[in-house]
């Protein structure tokens, strides 16, 4: 799989002063694949994203990008200063040299075209995330990187947002890397899940992850059970799985006696 990866991080290490935030992390995203990165707060998820995107230098390991890779990025929820008068069309247009028609098309795709001439500060959480997604899509990305896309979005909106991400993947065939600390919604739509807590605790298909002892250790046994339930209820919207052998492993770490930041 590594030969066809859009992006491939090998043995990535990142330290902030004496604290090791990422400890030899391996990660890859293939075209058309939705990879979800889960983990508790402070597990190093955003740091890993920033390293993969080239925004931060790792202290060890390598990041290989497919030649000429175009990435679309949706950063964590942020606020735009009220002192900056900025309409949605201008905000989206900051992506590069784009026409009004292209901006409109991108906003139509994420279903917020009605807000094109409104100020960004007046958008709801869900609308703003969609606008961010539109800006990322304008670059015709091969890889979409989404950092906590459901933050500040109500539960119904979250569901719709993840459906939208799935639809975008199907339409454009781009690889998607989603970071979350919310287990259920995100995992229900993932092809592969990476559970991060400084190091990769476990990885594989969502239903297998739910049964992994490392997952139970990190999120509690009940999380695994409810996850399995969630998958079950949502099986009808997903393709039957292909009996592919799950890639998952577990380093026998003692999590309790281990400094995870």
């Amino acid at each position, binding site marked *: 799989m590594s030969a066809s990866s859009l992006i491939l991080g090998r043995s990535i290490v990142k330290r902030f002063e004496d604290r090791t935030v990422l400890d030899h992390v391996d990660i890859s995203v293939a075209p058309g694949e939705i990879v979800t990165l889960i983990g508790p707060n402070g597990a190093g998820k955003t740091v890993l994203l*920033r390293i993969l*995107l*080239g*925004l931060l230098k790792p202290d060890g390991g390598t990041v290989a990008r497919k030649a000429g890779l175009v*990435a*679309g*990025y949706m*950063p964590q929820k*942020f606020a*735009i*200063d*009220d*002192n*900056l*008068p*900025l*309409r949605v069309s*201008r*905000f989206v247009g*900051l*992506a*590069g040299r784009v026409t009004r028609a292209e901006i409109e098309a991108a906003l139509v795709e994420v279903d917020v075209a009605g807000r094109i001439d*409104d*100020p960004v*500060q*007046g958008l709801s959480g869900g609308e703003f995330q969609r606008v961010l997604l539109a*800006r990322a899509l304008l*670059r015709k990305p091969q890889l979409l*990187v989404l950092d906590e896309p459901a933050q500040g979005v109500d539960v119904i909106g979250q569901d719709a947002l993840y459906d939208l991400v799935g639809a975008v993947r199907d339409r454009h065939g781009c690889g998607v890397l989603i970071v979350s600390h919310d287990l259920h919604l995100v995992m229900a739509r993932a092809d592969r899940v990476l559970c991060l807590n400084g190091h990769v605790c476990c990885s594989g298909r969502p239903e297998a992850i739910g049964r992994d002892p490392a997952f139970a250790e990190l999120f509690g046994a009940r999380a695994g059970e409810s996850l399995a339930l969630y998958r079950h209820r949502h099986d009808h919207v997903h393709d039957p799985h292909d009996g592919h052998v799950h890639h998952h492993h577990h380093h026998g770490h003692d999590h309790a006696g281990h400094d995870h930041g």
Partner: protein
Amino acid sequence: MDDFLVRAGMAGIGLALIAGPLGSFVVWRRMAFFGDALAHSALLGVALGFLLRVETNLTIAGICVAFAAVLTALLSRARLAPDTLLSICAFTALSAGLVALSFIETVRVDLMAYLFGDILAVGPADIAWIWGGAAVGLVVLKLLWRPLLSVTVHADLAAVEGVNVGAMRLAFVLLLALVVAVAMKIVGVLLVTALMVMPAAAARRLARSPESMAAIASAVGALSCVAGLVSSAEFDTPSGPSVVLAAAAFFALSLVLPLRR
């Protein structure tokens, strides 16, 4: 109308043209404190100019650029809160400038003029310097407008979209140093930031786009200069503070308007 008043008006309007858009960025980037600290270093440039017998406009610009580099480096490394650090640097620079000037016995330095400006004393050479500086600043700002705006809205997002964030920050700080050097003669060290921040703040409620805010800020700045100068001549008040008071009046007036988004 008196010649010196016409020259003063031309100088003020030239400064207002560049101070409007740059001041808007200062407001959006929350860098009013930074600009103020930068301005406090200008007095050191005056002293240096006298010591080296060089044109003070040049030494002021040189010192501002060097001080901007020091501030930027300190801000990225220090553990102190930025406002504390900026305050320390501003007062250190101001005091160093005052002490350095006290060593210069051969030249009688009109300290008040450097602290609060002496717009009525500007000669044709000063006007050329101001309009030249403003023209250079406006051209650079026009060329860098979209990437600079993008970095202001969200630096990481801009970086993923291919903007050189470090270069944009550097360019902005250099522009700021340029304007401080240009504005020095007119409103003095202690009032320079006022001429950038106040018109921009007054323009906010009238503007619906970043560009219109910048243009309105220039207009408000120019009007403030004219109104301040006229009242200064009429009531024999100091010119720099009169201009700032006029800008404050425009800002107060703008508060009556509803916030347009």
